[in-house]
């Protein structure tokens, strides 16, 4: 009998040859992310009178394969902000773990009731993303942060894998920036008009955008998560289904595929 514990329970070397441990170590150069693998598509968000509405579908794609159909891409932070993730799902999960840790640390260290607001969270995330891009080891995400600022006013901002940041009355990542953003800008072209929208109007606009995205984005799905962030807290629904779809326009589309008439 082999008395060394590390050999126990393994195929016998004298019968099967030495165990090939090569897969456990990486001899090549340290690999940094060069491309996203499992990806989430658009995130859309719009500000309204007393908060922000944000939505993303529940699909994680592996290339063109609809790989995971129940992935929640909206994550709450400290019960007061929501981060919507587009791009690589494993990087999203890494960031989510990191943010949970941060929220716990903050809850212990800061005075009662006070924690990082939406603006603080966005600054933190954008610095993290910029730091990683500067190390040539990016976190392959484009994210939206929905929350409130220091004056409890609605706050909405974006940050991407390069560390680029911006804010706007409405924001969308990925395909949403070409398909949903024009719809949202029609209702909220500037901060003043966004500040006049009611919660119901904002939710309707976002639902309309999710529908348009499902019609035209081949990497999207009809099940989605939607969150409303206000002073009262976060109201997150993770298993919504698109309503009132109409594919009537489809039979008028000609010129694609095998259709000959």
């Amino acid at each position, binding site marked *: 009998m*082999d008395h*060394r514990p*590390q*050999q126990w329970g393994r195929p*016998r*070397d*004298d019968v099967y*040859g*030495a*165990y090939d*441990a*090569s897969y*456990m*170590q*990486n*001899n*090549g*150069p340290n*690999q*940094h*992310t*060069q*491309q996203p693998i499992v990806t989430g598509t658009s995130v859309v968000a719009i500000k309204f009178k007393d908060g922000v509405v944000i939505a993303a579908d529940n699909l994680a794609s592996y290339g063109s394969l609809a790989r995971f159909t129940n992935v929640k891409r909206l994550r709450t932070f400290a019960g007061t902000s929501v981060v919507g993730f587009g791009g690589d799902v494993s990087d999203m999960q890494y960031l989510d773990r990191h943010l949970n840790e941060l929220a716990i640390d903050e809850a212990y260290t800061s005075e009662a009731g006070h924690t990082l607001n939406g603006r603080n969270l966005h600054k933190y995330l*954008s610095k993290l993303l*910029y730091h990683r*891009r*500067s190390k*040539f080891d*990016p976190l392959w995400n484009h994210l939206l942060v929905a929350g409130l600022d220091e004056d409890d006013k609605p706050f909405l901002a*974006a940050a991407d894998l*390069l*560390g*680029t*940041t*911006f*804010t*706007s009355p409405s*924001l969308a990542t990925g395909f949403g*920036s*070409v398909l949903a*953003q024009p719809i949202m800008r029609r209702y909220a072209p*500037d901060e003043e008009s966004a500040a006049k929208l009611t919660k119901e109007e904002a939710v309707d606009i976002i639902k309309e955008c999710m529908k348009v995205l499902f019609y035209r984005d081949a990497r999207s799905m009809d099940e989605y998560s939607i969150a409303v962030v206000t002073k009262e807290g976060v109201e997150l629904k993770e298993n919504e289904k698109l309503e009132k779809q109409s594919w009537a326009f489809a039979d008028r589309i000609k010129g694609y595929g095998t259709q000959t008439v």
Partner: protein
Amino acid sequence: MAMFSQNPVLNGPNYSFAEVPRDRVDGLREHRFNPYTDNGGSTLAITGADFAIVAGDTRLTSGYSINTRYAPKVFKIGGTNSNQSDATLLLSVVGYAADGEALKERLDAVCKMYRYRHNKPMSVNACAKRLSTILYQKRFFPYYVHAILAGLDEEGKGAVYSYDPVGSYEREQCRAAGAAASLIMPFLDNQVNFKNQYQPGSGEGHALAEREKAPLPREEVEILVKDAFDSAVERHIEVGDGLQMMIITSSGIEEKLLPLKKD
């Protein structure tokens, strides 16, 4: 005794890594992360006898998309509080927005530290030199921005310093930077430095006398800035939405926000 034990002490070195590197060492990888992007936009600075104006459009783009219509490119630098109400310097950055933001925050921190240590605000020429070294420190992984620093010099005259991404700098009367720099700069050469302007009836050939150089009054410069941007907006897709203008005089910094075409 096991012949192929994993224990190196028992039977010599037993490499637990692959013989052949998994990545090709030669040749280029097809996909490589590009750490830079161009967020468009344009900036411009002009000096006068006792003021300096720094302006920039507020559009931020990615390719053909407008990310936002309001992302300021001109910043007050070196104030003692978060709203920079007692700042004495202006910095504009255009190019890659994330680097611009990082550069702005670096320089702001440096100016603040200077203020705490010396109990006076940093002079514009000292800050100009410091900005140059900050940019050059990243010579081989540069901040991808064209920076312009403005303030009032020791004599109270308007001062504008312009930079390339790796820190070469020069004090100038005026400078345009960014996407529409090539559209605006020739206009400024003609209207601020009076290039190709001659005194009427002064003769031909060598007798031809240039128009005398004189600093422009503030009202005229403000109109010049607006005209320059209105023209740039017509011809450059990455420029538009809003015009942010910061005017620094001996009585402080004034900010103006004017509309530009949003198309």
